[in-house]
């Protein structure tokens, strides 16, 4: 991993508090895999002090895309950055989704901004893998955000909590009853959604999560971003962010 200084191509408000940030950066021979993340520097001054972790939404040659929502002061300041501004990020960090085989049957379940790493996954394999995508949002989302899912999924279902796009309701209500036919179930989104999915899937070895937690360093030295493992604490930035459901302990 290295520090890259990218140039912002655009930082566009899509809807509500959701933004798409496109950055041009010369990543050279650096390989970035779906599921990995970057630590973005919000300010050259020391306030905010920490970088912000963000999954890759898409990477193609020297164009890197992040999808984010304003959740606090850091992302609020990030949203004010304009085209042509420089931005520093350390990448690629963390592990990545298991490599998929051709024609593997995969269920993707994304909630909110959790669709971000799944989008990179689908744009990485395109139609080589049989993706069945289930995306849930709280409210309307422009098509641009889920374009790759529409293009490359065998089947795609979207739901919103307010019914402004797709079905009305929680996306978990729309996934198939029979999950046995999928070779892997890959999910990223709010913790309650992941926990509910965990309960529903019997074969835990098929279930893969991308997790998040408040992070300070992103490189395994601060020990902030922990999730309870089976017999020890797991660090999301270092041992993750991608985990098999077998590793994590979701019992409360």
């Amino acid at each position, binding site marked *: *991993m290295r*520090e890259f200084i990218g140039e912002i191509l655009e930082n566009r408000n899509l809807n509500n508090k959701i933004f798409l940030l496109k950055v041009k950066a010369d990543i050279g021979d650096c390989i970035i895999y779906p599921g990995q993340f970057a630590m973005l*520097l919000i300010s050259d001054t*020391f*306030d*905010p*002090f*920490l*970088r912000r972790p963000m999954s890759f939404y898409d990477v193609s040659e020297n164009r890197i895309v992040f999808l984010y929502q304003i959740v*606090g*002061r*850091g992302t609020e300041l990030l949203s004010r950055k304009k085209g042509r501004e420089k931005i520093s990020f*350390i990448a690629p960090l963390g592990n990545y989704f298991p490599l998929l085989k051709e024609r593997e049957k995969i269920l993707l379940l994304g909630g909110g901004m959790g669709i971000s790493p799944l989008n990179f996954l689908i744009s990485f394999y395109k139609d080589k893998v049989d993706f069945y995508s289930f995306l849930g949002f709280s409210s309307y989302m422009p098509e641009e955000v889920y374009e790759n899912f529409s293009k490359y999924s065998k089947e795609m279902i979207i739901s919103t909590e307010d019914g402004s796009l797709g079905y009305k309701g929680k996306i978990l209500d729309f996934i198939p009853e029979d999950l046995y036919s999928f070779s892997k179930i890959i999910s990223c989104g709010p913790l309650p959604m992941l926990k509910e999915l965990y309960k529903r899937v019997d074969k835990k070895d098929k279930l893969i999560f991308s997790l998040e*937690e*408040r*992070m*300070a*360093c992103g*490189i*395994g*030295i*601060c*020990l*902030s*971003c*922990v*999730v309870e493992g089976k017999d*020890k*604490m797991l660090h999301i930035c*270092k041992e993750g962010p991608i985990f098999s459901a077998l590793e994590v302990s979701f019992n409360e």
Partner: protein
Amino acid sequence: MSNLEVKVGSLTFKNPILLASGTCGFGRELMDYYDINILGGIVTKSITLKPRKGNPPPRIWESYAGILNSIGLENPGVEKFIEEESPFLENLNTHVIVSIAGEKEEEYCEVAKEIKDLKISGIELNLSCPNVDEGGMLFGIDLETVKEITRKVVDISDKPVWVKLTPQAIDILGLTKAVKDSGGEAVVAFNTFLGLAIDWRKRKPAFKRIFAGYSGPAVKPLVLRQVWELYEENILPIIGCGGVTSFSDVMEFILAGASLVEIGSANFRDPWIGMKSVQELESYFETEKLIDLIGFAHKNKEEV
């Protein structure tokens, strides 16, 4: 002799830059970013007798120009530390200071005994962690306990012993004298400041343990003031630690009277900060010697 060389007690450092405990793990992670042998040394994550899981998340919360943390001394325990981490540390070509923490006085002694034969440079007693229910900071605010633990560990270990102080202690000068009387070779000023954050949307404290440790550039002036006062008393060498984010911060600490400087939270923002600071010192001290500038600002105070 290099222009950056500094002697603290019985140890000689090739330069004054150390990484603070809890901000560089056991050194290995940062090796992916630069060769940490360029540093004057590193202070390990605190080791306790038994493994500790640490506190539940959230463990970190940002505040203006700083962070609150409540990690809770997560560490593998001394046995695993010796087995898994010490081989790497013993082969480093820089000083490795092992930080020790405990809930009971005896725990510090037990850990010191266990690591007695390791090829490490010294011990930093964490008598200042604010994020645990027993020991840590609660020991560090009590003069008698500081004396007792320091003396016992000094007796057990043949390695130099430093004490990392808490800024929550009232009598910093008294504590430093106590460390000296007990055979300690230096004090580290400071661990984090006890602070609080409220998650106003949820209308509750951000952290499970309510209070947490505040660090980062915001605390630098507070720490510098204490380093200045400690230097005037000339009791023990001072290792400055608090909000160092750049070469100029390092210089401020040296000029105020710190012999060494520990970089903490800044590693989280910029993993290369230690290396960069050493390189900038190297170019600044091309002709002068750094030791001549330790506490130098005191000489110039009349000229302000």
